[in-house]
């Protein structure tokens, strides 16, 4: 077989190996390895050059001093982490309230019939209004406005108003997500349930909602991510959470490093959740394609 002598090693491997899956996957495996290596090398060079340029530019010492101050970073981190606990509490309490309130609104809006018309109208107005207004405005109005009325028995704790404001803002969006899910379940499902004698509520509860909620988990997670970040907005009404705490530390040292620490906390918290959401979306898409 003199012809083999003229072939490159890779091609010869192809000729000598029996055809089938093994051969194909090995070949693509080698290709993947090479492109990964190239990607690593080019990334390393690219960011290396970028870092070199940054560090050697004339303004670098000043930037390093006010943004990347190692000592201050270490000093401010415990306070910032402690303040972040407030954000975590805000997030979890509001999230639970949002999931419940939004579901109630979505269900109200999707049940037909004249009896519920007033409630349907009310929920429609609510969703329209709260999606139209900037969140900060709502937080201000509730957080300063209501305690400012000085009515007997009305709470004064800003944390309380922060939870209420976030819940109201996000429930408007989340109820629309639920509603899209409910609408996506084919009417024949509901008809099948009703034909068996299930009431409208039972058909919704046992047949429509379980399918609807499963479908909207990825967009719900996207709204979770938004809420996680928007918990800093309540710093405006005096809740000492992570952003407010970093402002306090910044003001004491005239240095921006605490903000960088805060940014780091959010990156660590949010990127995994965002990645997980992307993964879920991709998985659902693959499954939908496989079922077609």
């Amino acid at each position, binding site marked *: 077989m003199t012809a083999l002598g003229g072939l490159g090693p890779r091609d010869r491997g192809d000729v000598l190996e029996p055809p089938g899956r093994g051969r194909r996957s090995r070949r693509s495996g080698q290709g993947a390895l090479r492109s990964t290596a190239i990607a690593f090398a080019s990334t390393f060079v690219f960011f290396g050059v970028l870092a070199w340029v940054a560090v050697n530019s004339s303004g670098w010492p000043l930037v390093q001093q006010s943004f990347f101050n190692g000592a201050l970073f270490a000093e401010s981190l415990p306070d910032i982490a402690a303040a972040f606990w407030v954000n975590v509490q805000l997030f979890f309490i509001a999230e639970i309230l949002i999931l419940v309130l939004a579901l109630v609104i979505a269900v109200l809006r999707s049940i037909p019939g004249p009896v519920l018309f007033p409630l349907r109208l009310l929920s429609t107005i609510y969703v329209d209004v709260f999606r139209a207004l900037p969140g900060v405005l709502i937080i201000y109005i509730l957080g300063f406005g209501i305690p400012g009325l000085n009515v007997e028995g009305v709470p004064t704790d800003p944390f309380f108003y922060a939870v209420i404001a976030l819940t109201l803002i996000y429930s408007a969006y989340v109820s629309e997500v639920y509603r899209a899910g409910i609408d996506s379940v084919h009417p024949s*499902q509901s008809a099948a349930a*009703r*034909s068996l*004698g299930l*009431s409208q509520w*039972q058909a919704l509860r*046992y*047949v429509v909602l379980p399918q609807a909620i*499963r479908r909207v988990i990825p967009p719900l997670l996207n709204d979770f991510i938004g809420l996680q970040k928007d918990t800093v907005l309540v710093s405006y009404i005096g809740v000492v959470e992570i952003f407010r705490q970093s402002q306090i530390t910044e003001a004491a040292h005239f240095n921006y490093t605490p903000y960088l620490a805060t940014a780091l906390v959010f990156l660590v918290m949010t990127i995994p959740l965002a990645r997980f959401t992307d993964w879920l979306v991709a998985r659902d898409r693959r499954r939908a394609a496989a079922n077609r």
Partner: protein
Amino acid sequence: MTSRGDAAGDAAAALRIVGLRKSFGTLEVLRGIDLRLVEHEVVCLIGASGSGKSTLLRCVNLLEPIDEGRIFVEGEEITAPGVDVDRIRRRIGIVFQSFNLFPHMSVLDNVTLAPRRVLKLSRADADAQAFELLRRIGLDDKAREFPDRLSGGQQQRVAIVRALAMHPDLLLLDEVTSALDPELVAEVLSLVRELALGGMTMLIATHEMGFARDIASRVCFLDAGRILEEGPPEQIFRAPREERTQRFLQRVMEAGRL
């Protein structure tokens, strides 16, 4: 035809439809349907696509509001104002062309959902009944599977069993084999045949003429929202009186379905 007056007193009829009219917007789909089924009777509805077969069945199950006319089940008017539709639907089973199993539930849960939630059977009793029904159609080993793991024929048989689990007085079947691959049609038809032999009262919309000839005590030819002709299968299929019935059967025969 009996007049409207004595319809209410006709307790012997399992199903009685009087002067039923139904429109979708300006399209009049049912234009005065009169039909009477006695207990244990099997009536097949035949007719071109769009003639109103599905709409008629959906009206009987109160899935569509009707415009005019009255429907009685065992003497009780189910179209009377203020009647509890959920209670009526319990007594009337319907099986659709597209199965409509609940995809998020196992086969077992599909069958037990209504008995548990509507009839308030305990889980143990509902499961026992469901297993018995599934065993009869040879699918008890699929009880824990989800519907998408079953063939079309198996899914449709589960859908029939799901309706039977409510012990309906009347079963409506809407082209239950039309969505199936040809080799899966027989298993579903033989189940329906078994039900007929067991005495189930059924109103069946179908394109399977051979099956209709076999099973029906009476065949109704539906044309543009009216029952144009009805009679025993031998008469309808051998000697149809109406020209439109003849033409319809001619077309069906040319398509190789008779």
